């Protein structure tokens, strides 16, 4: 029977969301292709995770070894290479996460198996694979054909497929197999986790946020945004490029590599809306976006949009909000 592998991702005792998202998409693909959905779980003392995965997949391949305790693309790839050669799955789904990005390309090259990355959709029909992915920071989509092969590897964008438990638990069979890793992996070693420094501003606690992106152009323009935020009673947050440039500290960053926020108000200034940022703020109650580009992806997530240079909007907006508040105080 044709198999579809989903490589489970976990960290610090938690199965990561992308795993359930892939299992949900994997189940849909498996039903269509009459294939068996197999979750592959590598780690150490992860038996409990295996039981959770068995609610979603027909089979859970469980590989436990102290060498697999923390993610190591080298060790994980060695095990996966063997399992893929043994089981010959038609599809291998891996999260397009920090882990997946480190492992999938090298694994594909080692196996000489075609790979598509950061996919937001995929269709598998009579042995052919078609991918949907984004380019230019989400400004365009592409449909891509994959070179015909017996096995394909696909990395799947996080938070793209809504995770859903099957109507009835899959009651999957947990099959434990040895890692067959004989030697210590010395080429590449996990040392430790590095946690963000404590303290700083907690943007997740703010009721109102004014988010600033690349459109701000220069660090000298940040005070203008801070003034607007202060007038509204909001906290300043930002997208990744602003932190990369050192214009605001990393505790202000919204997105996959920063914080996920759900304020009552999110004003996005000069933020194009790449998915990494959107993922961190799309749950906000009210989103108002200002961007010069009418096709900026942020406008698909905003409630209100303004197609204009943020420098033309911010000063009058600050004044109008100030006047409005002053009037309310007088009454």
């Amino acid at each position: 029977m044709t198999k579809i592998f989903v490589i489970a991702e976990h960290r610090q005792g938690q199965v990561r969301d992308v795993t359930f998202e892939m299992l949900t998409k994997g189940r849909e693909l498996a039903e269509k292709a009459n294939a068996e959905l197999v979750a592959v779980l590598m780690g150490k003392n992860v038996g409990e995770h295996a039981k959770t995965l068995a609610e979603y997949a027909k089979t859970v391949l469980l590989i436990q070894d102290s060498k697999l305790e923390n993610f190591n693309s080298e060790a994980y790839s060695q095990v996966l290479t063997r399992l893929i050669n043994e089981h010959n799955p038609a599809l291998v789904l891996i999260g397009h996460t920090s882990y997946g990005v480190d492992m999938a390309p090298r694994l594909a090259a080692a196996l000489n198996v075609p790979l598509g990355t950061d996919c937001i959709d995929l269709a598998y029909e009579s042995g052919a694979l078609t991918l949907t992915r984004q380019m230019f920071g989400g400004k365009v989509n592409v449909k891509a054909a994959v070179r015909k092969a017996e096995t394909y590897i696909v990395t799947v964008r996080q938070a793209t497929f809504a995770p859903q438990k099957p109507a009835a638990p899959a009651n999957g069979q947990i099959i434990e197999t040895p890692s067959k890793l004989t030697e210590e992996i010395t080429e590449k070693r996990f040392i430790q986790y590095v946690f963000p420094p404590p303290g700083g501003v907690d943007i997740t606690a703010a009721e109102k946020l004014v988010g600033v992106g690349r459109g701000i152009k220069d660090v000298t323009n940040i005070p203008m945004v801070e003034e607007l935020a202060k007038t509204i009673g909001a906290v300043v947050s930002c997208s990744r490029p602003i932190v990369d440039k050192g214009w605001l500290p990393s505790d202000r960053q919204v997105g996959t590599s920063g914080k996920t926020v759900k304020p009552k108000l999110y004003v996005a200034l000069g933020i194009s809306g790449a998915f990494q940022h959107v993922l961190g703020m799309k749950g906000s109650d009210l989103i108002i976006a200002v961007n010069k580009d009418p096709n900026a992806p942020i406008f698909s997530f905003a409630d209100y949009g303004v197609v204009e240079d943020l420098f033309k909007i911010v000063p009058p907006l600050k004044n109008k909000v100030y006047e409005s508040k002053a009037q309310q105080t007088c009454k």
Partner: protein
Amino acid sequence: MKTTVNEVSITWRDKRLDIIVCVKHVPETAEAELKIDSTGKAIDRTGLVFDINEWDDYALEEAVRIKEKQGGTVTAITVGADDSDSTLRKCLARGADKAIRLTDPRFDGSDGYAVAKILHSVIRNLPFNLILTGMQAGDDGNAVVGPILAEMLKIPHVTMVKKLELGAGTVRTNRELEGGLEEQVEVKMPALLSIQTGINEPRYVSIMGIRKAMQKEIKVMTLADTGLTENDVGVAGSWIRIEKMYVPPVEKQAEFLKGTPDEIAVKITEILKAKGLI
């Protein structure tokens, strides 16, 4: 014993390193309005400004900083058309010693896998201790070339590197995970590191630097110089092929506020007031 270890490590730190940086010449699209061209498979390049890929910019800076600290060479290499020279010139002006451009019409349509094969064919004959690449390119966002190249060269790799520290024959990196978390990973050299943005502050290029860089040679190589065949590169040598490019379907569209900036400011203020947010 301990002294010996320290000596080895000091010796290593004094050692000059040969570093190769893989770069890509890409359009700046973050703030541009994109149009799809008549083929329906690519963007219309008219009016777009091209520059070094943002991630590669950080990779190059990191390489130059290592060279400045402990000596060695930095070689910038790209697969691209003639106009990639401006990106290579920028690399040379920033401190790269050599530049190589791999150009051939038969490279057109190459995906990350094919590009990795092209780079490999040249890099395998060059001396190096470290290869730095950007973590991904801002155009296709595949994030595959680095690790595939590392596999072809049989050297270890680390992706999404936010910090690196050279040790005795090893390099210790901090790589970015989700939600502000990082992990420390150590690899043996020679190694390939794919660099994440924010690892450093890329320097501005001085006029002097650009002038000097104009005199440096850019070595141009074609398919014939790589030892690859035309089936290894381009669409034929790729895993994936773009069939159609389109504007992402809009599931929800913002209600656009129109008028003069003052009028828009009033409208936003009214919305905030109505929602009790001010």
